[in-house]
């Protein structure tokens, strides 16, 4: 009897502790409760070059690793809210500079417990290691000072911030935790005779897969060079569905390497691949096949994620030609050019109607930061207004339909963009015809996207169509949109050769934008932060340092054999690998 009681008690304790470390996934990710088993096959455009999240810049590697390793705090894939990840809770002290994280009781896939040591190690020696080629030092440095990490006990970690940091938890969602016991030998600071760059050689493609351990829903089980990456379910994963069933449902997650987009689509059609991202050009054909009874569904989701990056038009404020430089710096000129952009036509012709009017540049779906006031500021397509404004700037029609600069020279513009990015290419052609209509001789310079990047960095262009992804928090794009930063490329003279901002070279409103980003960075109150970024968006919409053109919708096609990949009522596509299942 005593033994029985003990046994029952033991069962209870085990059951309770199992429940205690599990967490129920947000119901927003479920269309229905799944069933275990089966495999999901996805495509990868390139083979991963490494399995080291911090050693490379490689989307294929990131795609795979997001299934394997996890951050302290996560973004809810449906709503974008910050939710607990490996940290089950956290609190911020009154000063806003100390954040204490309480870690979940989970194990690495090789059975080693996940502890505070792993967190401190990952942050100090990997994420914030400047020698790691995929590091995030910049995101965890405030006013030149790094965030400090301190272990309180095995399951508690404290982050000490140099100043309050409003986007702190948001940037943490991109800092995935790696196991100290596997990464330590590659760290120069902890080993004699190891070189600083060695961190990049951790978890290369020849690493035994059993050494690549994580806490995520899947673990690597096989890599066939340049052909296929197979992951298996992590049976001890800590997430459960709303009915308490263990996640992930899938036994296997397979990534096939298919370089050519058309071949990937062909493999999707033949049923070999279950889910693909498609372009506006492929949408009508696939949709027709769906309606004709093909075994797949085509989803057009409202834009919520950073990609596809929305294209914008920019002018080089530091172009060598002095007359042009003055023109490009003139607000009225850029406003005139905004009037030449027929966004509705572009959405129809270039995107097959599968795009929306973009934010400036915050996405309209981003409730936390979008400022709807910009909709009234953004300028409509109106060539007549464009003509008036150009006249005011001094670029006048000399009588034969050709516009000339104040010096009397005909106004000619070279527009640079990527020949291998279809929307950019098509937009450039449309702009060319609008500008010719205004009497501006336009030369298209269509080159490879790599070359566009180089010309942009070197300041060798007049007008350019480029694109940067939207991120949920403006702080994550500070390096682009804050004047004086490395990717504020249209006005490079706001930064000196030591990469420091030069306030003296900024316009008044640029100074204000600069300040707003500085204020937003250290503000902890979400309402106040939004107010700062609202003002920034309004200034951008008014002064148009760059002109945003359109934002493509998220287009995917999914096999009907796979469940829990669907359109939410708000029009957004959701579907994670750990909630997907085989019907």
């Amino acid at each position, binding site marked *: 009897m005593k033994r029985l009681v003990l046994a029952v008690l033991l069962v209870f304790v085990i059951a309770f502790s199992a429940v205690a470390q599990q967490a129920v996934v947000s119901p927003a990710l479920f269309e229905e409760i799944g069933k275990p088993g089966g495999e999901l*096959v996805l495509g990868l455009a390139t083979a991963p*070059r*490494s399995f*080291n999240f911090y*050693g*490379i*810049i*490689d989307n294929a590697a990131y795609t795979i690793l997001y299934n394997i390793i996890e951050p302290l705090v996560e973004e809810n894939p449906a709503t974008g809210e910050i939710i607990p990840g490996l940290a089950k809770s956290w609190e911020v002290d009154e000063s806003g500079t100390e954040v204490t994280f309480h870690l979940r009781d989970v194990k690495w896939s090789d059975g080693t417990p996940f502890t505070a040591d792993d967190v401190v190690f990952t942050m100090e020696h990997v994420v914030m290691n*400047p*020698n790691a*080629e*995929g*590091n*995030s*030092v*910049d*995101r965890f440095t405030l006013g030149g000072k790094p965030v400090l990490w301190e272990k309180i006990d095995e399951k508690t970690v404290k982050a000490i911030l140099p100043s309050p940091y409003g986007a702190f938890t948001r940037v943490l969602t991109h800092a995935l935790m790696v196991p100290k016991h596997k990464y330590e030998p590659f760290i120069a600071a902890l080993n004699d005779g190891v070189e*600083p*760059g060695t961190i*990049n*050689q951790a978890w*290369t*493609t*020849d690493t035994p897969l059993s050494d690549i351990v994580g806490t995520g829903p899947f673990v690597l089980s*096989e890599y*066939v*060079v*340049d*052909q*296929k990456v*197979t992951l298996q379910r992590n049976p001890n994963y800590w997430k459960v569905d709303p009915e308490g069933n263990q996640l992930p449902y899938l036994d296997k997650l*397979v990534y*096939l*390497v*298919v*370089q*050519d987009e*058309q*071949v990937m689509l*062909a*493999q999707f*059609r*033949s*049923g*070999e691949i279950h889910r693909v991202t498609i372009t506006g050009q492929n949408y009508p054909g696939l949709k027709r096949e769906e309606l004709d009874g093909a075994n797949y569904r085509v989803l057009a989701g409202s834009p919520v994620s950073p990609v596809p990056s929305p294209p914008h038009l920019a002018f080089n404020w530091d172009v060598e030609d002095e007359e042009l430089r003055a023109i490009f710096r003139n607000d009225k000129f850029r406003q005139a050019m905004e009037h030449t952009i027929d966004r509705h036509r572009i959405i129809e012709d270039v995107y097959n109607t599968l795009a929306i009017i973009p934010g400036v540049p915050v996405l309209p779906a981003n409730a936390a930061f979008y400022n709807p006031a910009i909709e009234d500021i953004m300028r409509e397509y109106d060539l007549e207004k464009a003509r008036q404004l150009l006249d005011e700037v001094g670029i006048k029609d000399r009588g034969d339909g050709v516009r000339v600069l104040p010096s009397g020279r005909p106004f000619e513009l070279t527009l640079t963009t990527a020949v291998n990015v279809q929307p950019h290419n098509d937009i450039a052609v449309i702009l060319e015809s609008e500008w010719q209509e205004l009497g501006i001789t336009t030369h298209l310079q269509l080159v490879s996207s*790599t*070359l566009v*990047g*180089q010309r*942009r*960095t070197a300041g060798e262009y007049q007008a350019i169509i480029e694109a*940067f992804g939207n991120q949920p928090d403006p702080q*994550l*794009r*500070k*390096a*682009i949109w804050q004047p004086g930063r*490395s*990717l504020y490329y249209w006005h490079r003279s706001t930064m000196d050769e030591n*990469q420091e901002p030069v306030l003296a070279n900024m316009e008044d409103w640029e100074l204000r934008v600069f300040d707003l980003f500085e204020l937003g960075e250290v503000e902890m109150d979400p309402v106040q932060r939004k107010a700062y970024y609202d003002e920034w968006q309004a200034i951008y919409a008014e002064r148009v340092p760059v002109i945003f053109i359109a934002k493509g919708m998220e287009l995917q096609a999914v096999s009907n054999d796979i469940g829990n990949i669907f359109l939410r009522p708000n029009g957004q596509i959701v579907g994670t690998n750990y909630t997907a299942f085989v019907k």
Partner: protein
Amino acid sequence: MFRYIVRRLVTMIPMMIVISILCFTVIKLQPGDFTTQFLTDPRITPEQVAQIRERLGLDQSPVVQYLTWMKGILTRGDFGYSFAYKRPVQELIWERMGWTVAVAGATIVFSWVVAIPIGIYSATHKYSFFDYLLTFIGFIGVSIPSFFLALILMYLSLSLGGTAVGGLFSQQYIGAPWSWAKVVDLVRHLWIPVIAIGLSGTAGLIRLMRGSLLDVLGTQYITTAKGKGLSQRVVIYKHAVRNAINPLISVFGMQLPELISGTIIASIVLNLPTMGPFFYDALINSDQYLVMTFLMLSALLMLIGNLLADILLALTDPRIRYE
């Protein structure tokens, strides 16, 4: 003969050095370097990019970079480090060698096995209906780019209900242990690349074989052989073809580098796990030591192929002597 081979092998050394200098110069003429891609990433500051360049040795002059690379090869057999993969380049190339040689080998065998008989038939049945037909197909093979042919074949296969598009195996057989079913699956996939890539080679070989054999068939010793009353079979196969094959042996030598370089675009379209797409990626990323090693290997195979062709010629044709 032996002295000749040794002499040829020794002259390869200065040749390889000149080739390596040329290749390195061309790579360095390409704008930007491996770190250029970091400049567009908002997470990485330009300062860090400078650090990475320094660590990879890209801040040194091209001459120093070249000499350091050469020194590594000569002293340690180290062909350098791939910036993109963070691994030694010879390992990376070796990993991909198997399928590359297998696919290219199958293609080359296909083109020879198909081309030689057709070439002989065309020559011996000059201006017949089948000669015109085969020559016509040959011209099509020469003029259609192999990647385009690959697309057409895949389209045909798909629209006829096939599911084998791209790659060498269906998903479930990739990485699986060898079995009869896996071999069948391989064959179901392999015919598209073999035909698509092989056809252009085939067409060229048919033209060459036909032309060469026609030349020989017009010579006096053939007339003599016929006049002596030898059977048509003996005249053609024993006397004519043996002499007509010489130009093809030279071509065979040239095909050796194709074993690794092959046709890049066709391999991308066909999704083959071979060196072509891998090399293309390395070029795009300016992964310079990977590109260099690959080019050097290709050049070496070319030189060896030529040598082999010369040796084969000496063996098949008693008139050729290199002493």
